[in-house]
């Protein structure tokens, strides 16, 4: 299993639709301060079911919808799709390609899609957890968070080993 493509529109600073085709090896994202690099990571985190606005650096989940700029009005829908290659059947699904989609309206309504068909958030989260991609996997390290892996107190460190067990 690997990530093939991320499609973002209306999410954070992505007023204009943005698609990224990932390489199976190492894909690097570069650019000046404030250009939207960490927002790409937030988009991946969000479509995988992240429920905490704070983890996405917002106060409320509505903060992920493009809020406008000097030249553009704000939009009312944020949408992110993540296309996964499942040729190796790593994910518990018969599809060789899986697409996950999450949408949020400014009204507060959320929608989730699995291979373009409406589903519940639980369906996506269950699919991920069954495949070992639950929240406790060490698959995303945010900006400034790398030192937290060492965490300061010995008794806090054991959760790393419990998660991995």
């Amino acid at each position, binding site marked *: *299993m*690997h*990530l093939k493509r991320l499609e973002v529109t209306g999410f*954070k*600073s*992505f*007023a*204009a639709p*943005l698609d*990224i085709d*990932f*390489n*199976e*090896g*190492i*894909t*690097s*994202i*570069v*650019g*000046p301060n*404030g*250009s*939207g*690099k*960490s*927002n*790409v*990571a937030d988009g*991946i985190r969000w479509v995988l079911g992240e429920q905490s606005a704070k983890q996405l650096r917002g106060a409320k989940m509505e903060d992920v919808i493009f809020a*406008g*700029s000097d*030249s*553009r009005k704000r939009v009312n829908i944020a949408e992110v799709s993540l296309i996964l290659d499942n040729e190796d059947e*790593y994910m518990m699904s018969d599809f060789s390609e899986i697409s996950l989609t999450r949408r949020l309206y400014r009204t507060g309504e959320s929608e989730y899609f699995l291979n373009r068909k409406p589903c519940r958030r639980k369906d996506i989260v269950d699919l991920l957890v069954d495949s*070992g*991609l639950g929240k406790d*996997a*060490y*698959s*995303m*390290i*945010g*900006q*400034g*968070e*790398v*030192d*937290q*892996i*060492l965490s300061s*107190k*010995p*008794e806090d*460190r*054991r959760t*790393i*080993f419990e998660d*991995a*067990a």
Partner: protein
Amino acid sequence: MTRKFNETFALIRTYFQETFTAMFGGGEADLLLEDPDDLLETGINIYARPPGKKRQSLSLLSGGEKSLTAIALLFAILHVRPVPFCVLDEVEASLDEANVDRFANYLRTFSSQTQFIVITHRKGTMIASDILYGVTMEESGVSRLVSVKLEDYAYDEAEGVLQTG
């Protein structure tokens, strides 16, 4: 539960000794249980000794040495509990050039089993990548994607903005 914890701990410990010497080009590291008789509650102590130095407490390590130790532990965990993809947001920001190169080399070898999406400002990491994307805000406040070839990337030397081909 405790048997599984013990096995996982032992595995991560072995790999950590290996990834640490790979990251630092020498030295040694170790993980020890604070109270081996109480596997359900025990904390975990981390020891790190950069090459040429005496073993000291983790808090006396430098900023870069701490991040490098954290990265070594992350790689050890990924060895024991592999994930299909991993997103790293500027984890190597505090490393000097020699350490960035060691990190980038390790990422290269690791990328045969795990897909990496790396947000970075460092040349050593860019050089190790399979593909490079630039995120810019030519229209202020709106993120766009540009494809970048490394030789076109005059970002850090010239005017400090992304120079694209």
